[in-house]
């Protein structure tokens, strides 16, 4: 990593020059015939509150660069610290690509402390490469009225968060829901990496609705059970995955939240929704299972009591695959097993960098999850 001394004013040309030199240097060091190609298909702005996760972030960025070579601007804003003006470091790294080609990527780290933190956007944003899509990966508590957040968000096409990693998932979901529901179409589209982790679960649940023979019982759902393991940072809280899955089912299937009193238990929160006048019991169950990572789903089950039907997606006890099971009129039908590929954060993030548009299904799911949170409070 190479530090660049900053004067009173950021010299963008100097930073660009240093980055070019780094690239040339890494290309010159190649002893074999493979070329080092400088590739940038997007800008990625990262904001985090301290440097504790910098190493992990670097590993993620390195892996990400194989698929999405970016210019990454890592902004570390240590708010509760002695004042220190912005320090700027640059580095470049490359990933082996296809046919001995290596894609060189650039990382610019800006660190500010104390009262200098709000200056970060003004130093970082001029370093964005023009005309490329820009993503903001916010790795701090999300407060949509925070000035720094707003400055970065204005420059970005898409905001990315990870509700699995945040320390206050409840506040994050509520803040997001507020942003979605203020009636204003926001320019900024939003992704949650934790929502991406639910894709397999959603796909398998959706597959039940593909089969006509399942339609009748699925239209007469009487109960939903969602099992999750406790989140790492807030073991007593409901895992955002469980809330988002419940919110997704409810919003897609047009279930209304019932005003019936919530039935809190030690490890289960039970609430009710209504569909065509029918009451549906929803149980969010916190379970302890060694093979299920913190904050992840273990099982989702739809029950249609009158039809003696159940539709289950569950994580295998050893966590290696997801499996489905449909039971109709007491008869079990062939299920499906999917290997859980345990996609890394970089792989999940990579999927999010492929899209720029709003994900209205996610937005409605979060709104509903926030409604549930407010209701069961």
């Amino acid at each position, binding site marked *: 990593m190479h530090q660049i001394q900053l004067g009173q004013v950021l010299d963008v040309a100097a930073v660009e020059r240093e980055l070019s030199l780094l690239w040339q240097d890494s290309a010159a060091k190649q002893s074999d015939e493979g070329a080092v*190609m400088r*590739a940038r*298909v997007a800008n990625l702005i990262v904001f985090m509150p301290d440097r504790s996760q910098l190493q992990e972030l670097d590993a993620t960025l390195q892996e990400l660069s*194989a*698929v*999405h*070579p970016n210019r990454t601007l890592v902004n570390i804003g240590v708010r509760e610290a002695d004042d220190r003006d912005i320090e700027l470091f640059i580095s470049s790294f490359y*990933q082996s*690509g*296809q*046919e001995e*080609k290596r*894609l060189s990527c650039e990382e610019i780290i800006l660190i500010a402390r104390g009262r200098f933190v709000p200056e970060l956007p003004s130093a970082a944003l001029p370093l964005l490469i023009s005309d490329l899509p820009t993503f903001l990966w916010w790795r701090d508590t999300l407060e949509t009225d925070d000035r720094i957040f707003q400055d970065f968000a204005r420059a970005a096409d898409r905001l990315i968060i990870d509700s699995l990693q945040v320390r206050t998932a409840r506040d994050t979901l509520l803040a997001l829901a507020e942003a979605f529901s203020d009636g204003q179409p926001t320019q900024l589209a939003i992704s949650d990496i934790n929502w*991406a982790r639910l*894709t*397999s679960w*959603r*796909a*398998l*649940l*959706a*597959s039940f*609705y*593909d*089969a*006509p*023979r399942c*339609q009748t019982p699925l239209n007469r759902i009487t109960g939903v059970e969602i099992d999750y393991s406790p989140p790492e940072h807030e073991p007593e809280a409901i895992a955002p995955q469980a809330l988002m899955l419940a919110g*997704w*089912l409810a919003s*897609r*299937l*047009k279930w209304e939240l019932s005003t019936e009193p919530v039935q809190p238990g030690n490890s289960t929160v039970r609430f009710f929704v209504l569909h065509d006048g029918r009451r549906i019991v929803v149980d969010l169950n916190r379970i302890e299972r060694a093979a299920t990572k913190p904050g992840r789903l273990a099982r989702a089950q739809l029950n249609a009591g009158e039809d003696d039907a159940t539709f289950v997606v569950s994580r*295998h006890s050893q966590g*290696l*695959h997801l*499996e*489905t099971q449909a039971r109709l009129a007491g008869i079990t*039908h*062939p*299920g*499906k*097993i*999917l*290997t859980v*590929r345990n996609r890394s954060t970089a792989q999940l993030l990579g*999927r999010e960098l492929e*899209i720029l548009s709003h*994900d*209205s*299904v*996610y937005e409605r799911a979060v709104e509903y999850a926030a409604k549930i949170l407010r209701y069961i409070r």
Partner: protein
Amino acid sequence: MIVPHEENPLRAGLRLERTAEPCALIIFGATGDLTRRKLIPALFRLSQQRLIPAEFAVVGVARHTLSDEEFRSSMREAVLEFGSKEEFGEAAWNSFAAALFYLSGDFGANETFASLRERLSQIEADRATQGNRIFYLATAPDFFGLIARNLGAARLAQSDTGWTRLIVEKPFGRDLESARALNDELSSIFKEDQIYRIDHYLGKETVQNLLVFRFANNIFEPVWNRQYIDHIQVTNAETVGVEGRGGYYDKAGVVRDMIQNHVFQLISLIAMEPPVSLEAKSIRDEKIKALQAVRPIPRAEVDAFAVRGQYGAGYVLGESVPGYRQEPGVNTDSSTETLAALKLYLDNWRWAGVPFYIRSGKRLQKRVTEIAIQFREVPHGLFTEADSPLEPNVLVIRIQPNEGITLRFGAKLPGQAMRIRWVNMDFRYGSSFGVKAPEAYERLLLDCMLGDSTLYARRDMVERGWEIVEPILKSWEAPAKDFPNYEAGAWGPPGAFELLARDERDWRRL
């Protein structure tokens, strides 16, 4: 039947790729190479990606006597050998393998099809495949008509409850007459919209990108015509020989094996007019119009438009390799062409006077498939003192390897003098997208399950391909006195170079 995805409320916004409908895939030739190398690994990968539903079954049919378990075990080995080992998981395999079944039988025996019918009804009930069936003819071409007839006789060409489709592997006939006969035979049993003629080239990501490149970008189409384009070169060069297929290849040759199907598909995508939509019919209509515009080559003038070659012994990629006539299964005095170079004209408004040069061959210096569009030179040579002759701009669409697009243009060399250096502006799939593209067979199998025939060859396209090459094939029935006429590892015989030299052009140096 299946609930249409757009009616499934939970499918909205799912960022998954398209998912197939429940169906049974019946593979004739289930113990053959294609099934092992391509089909089962592709199906397993589709299953891993959740692109095929739980309500799915594969019924392998072949002459060997095997139990279901033995077939599964053999396919497991195939997936481990030819699929991705990293993505292989026992649990996922076991789930997939439970959908694999095997039926032993002679393709010519009525009993085989009666047993198939019986077996299918049981499997369809157990696996809930809803009566949807795909019959895949992965056999030698001699069996295509026979199997189709027997499917018809066993009332398997139509399903009582679902849809039925037929996938036919190449070669689709060996000349115009046999292709028409096969088409007629299949058409007497299956409707055209049930027949999927596979051309795995169309499943390649870069081939599909041709449509995006041409019709999603506004800057290329205005110059995509005779006003700006001097000529087009399509190269399909292989370093391999006949790879143990000497018996087949010696009856086919490169025109039948590559040009009539794969290369003409590329030509049609390059030359077609913009389709009115992305519907299969719209795209195929435009493609056939492009091929219909190809000027027929009079039999008497074949030598002016086509050159044939056959490799002798030589060196390829640093290894000594035998000549074609020394390959196993090949006649020692064979006149089969292992290389062909063609010049075609498309007589239509867009392409009048623009030659399309095609070369396709085996045992050439390096493996490359590309389409090079060479633009006309600038109308007035302004840089006469530039010390470098002006060169035309070239746009190269590389199909394999290093899939991508390159634009060649002139740039000033830094310095006091006005010198021009010709540089390449490169887009490489591997540089901009690190994502692995799906294998061609994954894409094509999934398309068939979805009823999308865009990337399959239509009857008229196949027959038009044969019509174009018919005079060449007839002319080349005469023994070639100068064979072998190029060394393995070279770029073909002198005649291939003369074909362009006569027009004061050269093949691109690759």
